[in-house]
């Protein structure tokens, strides 16, 4: 059994940067990644804004040195880039010298290729290589292959927008129980017409820059991203004398059991997830120095999450902000993106601004942190909620 779950490496690619350093620089300077869409031909291109990654698929293919015969979805490209950075950051040279697993999260999977070739598949043989790349486990298998992980526990979680938080949670439990010495956890999702149109029909896409926790918030901006963390046991950290970036201290998972897509008005699931995470971490609400909120900027989420935060923290609300205004909502990857941001906040003792906020919500009087701020950080809570009532909270700390 391992008492601690150490984070020893991380990697990320998002609309605000192609690696950890670039992401942090954007967070510090308040540089948003939200823009008009350029890489997907969609009828909605003038009525939505997104968090898009600069590289084309061809550029990503070249960076990874893949032959043009590959059948990678954009999800797989992004996932491999971020996972490789995490491994490098953790100083791992031989991935199989410890019992290593991979838990990845995705909701889009290979949908970007499927929607591009859906009817061509039947007639155009050259596109058929993508058929078996559709399923959600495909990008995970490719990441494992690229990292050299063999004969191992490799699996995929898809619980909508809470997926990557759940990947982190499972990874932490596998380390704690001693089943694995090391596990790479995170998630990847690319933009697709499927999700753009899906969220459009739900009428929760903003036509402008998303503004979490603002009274006049108009909905979310979709984003694409991938991020991975390397989790290692006490044994590995000790024997390799590894620098530890932070620890996964607590985690909670609950179901709202209210509606397939909407959160309950009082945030029952969210409240339970936060309480459970505090319990696992053996901490009380006052120990939390910052909450990286889910804060998607939809009417429903921000109200429900805000009420849940009030229920858990009562009169003593810690600083909180949503970083979705920087990256957009990156769906299954969001929990991992925000895990990287939480670790960076711990390392640098900072709090990120909640961009685009103008008007206080009338339902409650809590206000997110609006300016970039330096502050001694010790324990950070990160929330991720999804369709299907899936609610997850992870707590990161400086100390074990």
């Amino acid at each position, binding site marked *: 059994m391992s008492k601690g779950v150490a984070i020893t490496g991380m990697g990320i690619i998002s609309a605000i940067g192609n690696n950890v350093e670039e992401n942090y620089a954007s967070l510090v300077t308040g540089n948003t990644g939200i823009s008009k869409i350029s890489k997907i031909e969609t009828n909605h291109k003038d009525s939505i804004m997104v968090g898009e990654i600069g590289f084309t698929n061809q550029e990503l293919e070249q960076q990874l040195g893949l032959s043009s015969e590959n059948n990678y979805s954009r999800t797989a490209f992004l996932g491999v880039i971020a996972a490789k950075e995490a491994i490098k950051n953790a100083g791992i040279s031989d991935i199989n010298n410890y019992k290593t697993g991979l838990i990845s999260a995705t909701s889009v999977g290979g949908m970007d290729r499927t929607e591009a070739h859906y009817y061509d598949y039947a007639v155009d043989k050259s596109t058929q290589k993508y058929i078996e790349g559709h399923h959600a486990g495909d990008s995970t298998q490719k990441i494992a292959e690229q990292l050299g992980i063999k004969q191992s526990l490799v699996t995929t979680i*898809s619980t909508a927008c809470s997926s990557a938080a759940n990947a982190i949670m499972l990874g932490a439990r596998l380390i704690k129980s001693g089943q694995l010495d090391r596990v790479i956890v995170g998630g990847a999702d690319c933009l697709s017409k499927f999700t753009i149109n899906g969220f459009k029909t739900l009428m929760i896409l903003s036509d402008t820059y998303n503004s979490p926790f603002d009274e006049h918030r108009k909905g979310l901006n979709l984003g694409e991203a991938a991020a991975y963390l390397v989790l290692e046991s006490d044994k590995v950290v000790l024997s390799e004398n590894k620098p530890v970036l932070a620890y996964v201290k607590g985690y909670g998972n609950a179901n709202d059991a209210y509606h397939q897509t909407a959160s309950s008005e009082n945030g029952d699931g969210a409240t339970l997830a936060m309480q459970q995470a505090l319990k696992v971490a053996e901490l009380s609400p006052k120990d939390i120095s910052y909450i990286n909120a889910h804060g998607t900027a939809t009417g429903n989420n921000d109200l429900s999450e805000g009420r849940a935060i009030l229920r858990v923290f009562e009169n003593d609300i810690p600083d909180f902000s949503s970083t979705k205004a920087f990256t957009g909502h990156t769906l299954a990857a969001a929990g991992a993106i925000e895990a990287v941001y939480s670790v960076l906040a711990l390392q640098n003792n900072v709090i990120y601004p909640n961009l685009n906020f103008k008007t206080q919500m009338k339902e409650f009087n809590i206000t997110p942190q609006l300016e970039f701020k330096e502050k001694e950080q010790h324990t950070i809570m990160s929330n991720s909620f999804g369709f299907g009532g899936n609610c997850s909270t992870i707590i990161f700390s400086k100390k074990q």
Partner: protein
Amino acid sequence: MKTVYINSVCSISSQKTFDNSEFLDEIIYHEDNLIPVVNPNYKDYISPSESRRMAKGVKMGVAASKIALKDANLDTVDAIITGTGMGCLRDSEKFLGALIDNDEQFLTPTSFIQSTHNTVGGQIALNLQCKGYNFTYVHSSISFESTVLDAKLMLENNEANTILIGGVDEIGDYTAKLHQIINHIKAEKTSTSELLNSKTEGAVFSEGANFFVLSNEKQTSSYAEIIAISTYNTLGNSKISDLAKSFLDENNLDIDAIDMVVLGNNGDVTFDGFYNELSSGLFKNTQQVYYKHLCGEFMTASSFGVWLASKILKTQKLPEIVKLNNLKDSNFKTILLYNQYRGENHSFTLLRKC
């Protein structure tokens, strides 16, 4: 660490398996490359208004979970963990088809909402009003095994006492057509009795839902104990026999301790070699059982294997139709299950009579 028991089962498959008072008493012989399930009367488990909105996978999942809960004599559980390799295919196909056909116009949200992989898990939670831990695994042929692994971890450490797990996948007509084009589904109709002799590429596909209540407390309804489970993304440079041996070693068992192997052969001439290596090698003197001629192949078909092994352990009966050889017909204590799909995502599961 606490022991983990299978306290109830429910299988909705292309055989009449949903009635727990029976055990493959009458066999349906299919002759096709895509075979349908035998549906229970969904009205017994789901209200008509709910049922109308539910895709096949959701319906099968919700009904199977209710039967499993009843079999375990429970009203609810502490956690729900679902495995699905392809997710809610029909709604995905419906939404994507409409999106392309209508050039991104006139779309309605229903099929999008239902297309997410966690729809079944979410709907079961909603139905049972279960606010506990809720996960969905979507990793090809180990989607179901991941639910077992996760539930076992929780129950052993006493983080939960009762967990509903299940594997569910539905047939999507267009996806099936595509999988036929790339020879993942057999080109020709193949009969149940001739599946393993077909010598052709691809598998006979189907759909289904197999749900179980796992618990760290044994009860009179208990079927079996789950001793161990391991999944492997690839074999690396090893042979499957080497992996089988080291799996048994890790569990302090030798070959003779295994009373039966349950193999996932699906009649694909390209990939059945993994099973044949075990059945003609390590386990040639062990009673061998197969099942995909009954339930077809799908990403969570191995959950039917666990259903079969559980029923054998509880009833101590071995139906003729599943026998690959004839070496043992009673006193089944320890069963090893092995499955893979297209040479990847291998798994071993070890069950014991309780």
